[in-house]
């Protein structure tokens, strides 16, 4: 094989080629060598220089915040401001996830739930992430801090599903299931049914929470995709307390359920 290059160098003239061509029948095997041949002696590749960037940066950090609910809720008992949003920062495989929701009105904040979770896709699952971190009930009531473990993702049929389990001092346990689904009427008109349910293992009278199924917040919103990131909407929402939580709420002379007209924006960036 090494001879190939030598032959090429050695020939180096038209005449030689012509001669070879004329008697090709005799020396056809050599003839094939008259062109390039298979390189045999690998030369060591010069190393990458210092400060070379990666060829592609596929582990970039991204950050997004989505407020599914940023709305006024008008009911017979007055108008409240409601927010429910989530944001994340991180790479494909490692993210810090922040969640916040609550009601504000009449100078008080209620149902204030703030969470900070580490998030990672679950191996062998296509669309679900595991999340673990802390939840802080921060509002006008007494503060509670929980450890949180949950999953969040896309169940079949594009159903957003987000169950979370919480535990805190004193053996208190809690569970939350929330879900939503986007029904596209047209490319720009979307109906979104949504629900969030809360469960507690023990009473917490200071926060008007009774054990068992505690409360539900559900609604249907009709939004218009003005731009992908800005969707004004109107809708109907219902929030109701049950069992022990309803009892505590009644004791403080508050309504155990509200049916309200909602209006607001779904925004993300």
């Amino acid at each position, binding site marked *: 094989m090494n001879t190939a290059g030598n032959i090429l160098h050695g020939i180096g003239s038209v005449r030689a080629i012509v001669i070879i061509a004329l008697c090709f029948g005799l020396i056809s095997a050599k003839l*094939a060598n008259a062109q390039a041949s298979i390189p045999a002696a690998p030369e060591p590749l010069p190393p990458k220089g210092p400060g070379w960037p990666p060829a592609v940066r596929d582990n970039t950090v991204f950050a997004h915040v989505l407020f599914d609910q940023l709305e006024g809720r008008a009911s017979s008992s007055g108008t409240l401001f409601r927010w429910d949003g989530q944001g994340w920062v991180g790479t494909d495989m490692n993210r810090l996830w922040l969640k916040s929701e609550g009601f504000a009105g009449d100078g008080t904040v209620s149902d204030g739930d703030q969470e900070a979770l580490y998030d990672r896709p679950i191996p062998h699952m296509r669309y679900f992430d595991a999340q673990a971190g802390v939840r802080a009930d921060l509002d006008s009531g007494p503060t509670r801090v929980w450890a949180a473990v949950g999953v969040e993702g896309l169940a079949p049929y594009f159903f957003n599903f987000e169950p979370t389990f919480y535990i805190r001092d004193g053996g208190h346990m809690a569970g939350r299931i929330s879900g939503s689904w986007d029904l596209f009427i047209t490319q720009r008109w979307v109906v979104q049914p949504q629900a969030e349910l809360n469960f507690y293992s023990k009473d917490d009278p200071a926060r008007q929470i009774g054990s068992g199924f505690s409360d539900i917040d559900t609604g249907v919103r009709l939004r218009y995709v003005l731009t992908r990131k800005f969707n004004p909407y109107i809708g109907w929402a219902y929030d109701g307390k049950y069992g022990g939580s309803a009892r505590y709420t009644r004791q403080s002379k508050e309504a155990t359920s509200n049916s309200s007209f909602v209006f607001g924006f779904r925004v993300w960036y």
Partner: protein
Amino acid sequence: MSTNGRKSHRPNISISRRHFVQGMASAGVLAAFGGNCLPALSESAEQKPTELSGTHFELTLDTLPVNFTGRDSVATAVNGSSPGPTLRWREGDTITIAVTNRLKESSSIHWHGMRIPTEMDGVPGLSYRGIAPGETFVYRFPVLQSGTYWYHSHAQFQEQTGLLGALVIEPRDPYPVEFDREYVVLLSDWTDANPESIFSNLKQESDYYNYHRHTVANFIGEAKDKGAGSTLKERMAWARMNMSPNDIADVSGAAYTYLLNGNAPRANWTGLYRPGERVRLRFINGSSMTFFDVRIPGLAMTVVQADGNDVEPVVVDEFRMGVAETYDVIVQPTANDAYTIFAQAEDRTGFARGTLTPKLGLAAAVPAMDPRPRRTMMDMGMGSMAGMKMGGMKGMDTSGTQVMDMSGMNGRKMGVASMTSGGSTMPAMSDDAHRAMPGMQMSNGAGLTPFPQPGLKTKPIAEPRAGAEEVKLTPSKPLKMRVGPQVAAVPMTVSSRLNDPGDGLENNGRRVLTYADLRARYRGVDSRPPTREIELHLTGNMQRFIWGFNGQKFSSAEPIELKLGERIRIVLINDSMMEHPIHLHGLWSELENGHGAFNPYKHTIIVKPAERVSYLVSADTPGRWAYHCHLLYHMHAGMFRTVVVS
């Protein structure tokens, strides 16, 4: 910008072509001096990139105010125009290109499809560090091939912002198919949006740019045609997997304006011809994310070249161009009439358009776009024809090596035959290149590399002790893919789809080019059978917008190691629901489409959903070569590997 204006020696170059070449003083150049007060490229006024020829080039990369859409925006430009000037080289010449970066960020130029030393390949992180702001990098390499190619930045998202241009390399020998006039038709997708925002948006909402989702409204329309029951059943089948048959392009006309030689459809790029002339159109898909379906209503197109390599002429009405592919076609309009060059995006959200006309001002009707393609169960690899496809696949599996053995034998015979016909002339290319570039020619005493491009006078490379021992093929271990965060689907069956023109082009009443139609005009130079098979799955998760090979992104994968001189078979299996144009730098990809020794040489190969494609690669050039999906955002999402040849 200096060029040593070398006169073209080619006999069939027409005066009109030269007129075209010189008459293209672009307003973009003026704008470079005029600053912000001059809109460089307006929405309606037609602009054409300039053309530079010679052996020495000076290119300057800088920002440029542009207006493609009616809104002012900023492009990354070459010599004050976007797309940049067309560079015209000549096979056998040694080219120097001094590229000065006046951008605020690091930049690069990659010569797409060029077989050049790895350090000249222009990939930051593999070839070099990139070109830092204010720095000048001098590329210098021998041109050992001919054909239509293109260049673009390989840094950040500068390709999307317009840092690209056409590359035309004149062959040393006469063109095998004559023509009277030629035009470059460079297609691209322009967006006023920041590409980094596009990428970020896709990470949060992968169907952000898709305004053709399933809706109640289109359900009603579809139910009228197909019945509510079957429509619902079909939609449920897709929704169960959280996938959409409407996922054709990740970035659509919602963000893109499609350009032809830098002209929006309304600006209507125009090429002149005299009736009866043979016009060579050098189509280049220089877009970031868009597949184009190209046709010229009223004109048949004769495809004569694909990815810079001559093919046996095929007459078609339409062809699909994957991102980064090139096709040269010859048309011969005889009527004294205008024709529309119509390049619709695969997802039918827009089109690029130009006009061929015998006199300025004349334009032809612009056709309506075709119905939007939809993914089928075939794309998912779970069609009802599974049995049939299995059969096809089995055939491919077993016959693959046999085909190669045969071609190897034929190769030797043909090498002799071609020698008799062209034997009295020198092997012009290699010898000349050798003389021109004593320092850079990578001769290592064992022979010349890279192997020459197949041509009329190209002879096959030498074989090590021909026929002495049987070459054993080490097959790749079939990978058992499993679904996970980075793999949303694993098709039950994969098939060869080389005869399939692609989603949305089947049975449209037109002659549409398929990969099976591509037969190389010249015999391949390396007739050795492959000794090794490398199987790679194209994987991704659309919802998460993660893409990779074998379920791994670039950052978590090891390079693919090839031994210098070895010949391998790459088997690509597309596990995803989208086409991927896979581009291997530095080495040819010889598509195994059943033409044996005449399998076409390509640099970019489309792999359709649930398709299995194989091609042969001669690892004849040492280097660190980029190997990636040429959909820009797929590449940045991780669909990239390094191929090390050493």
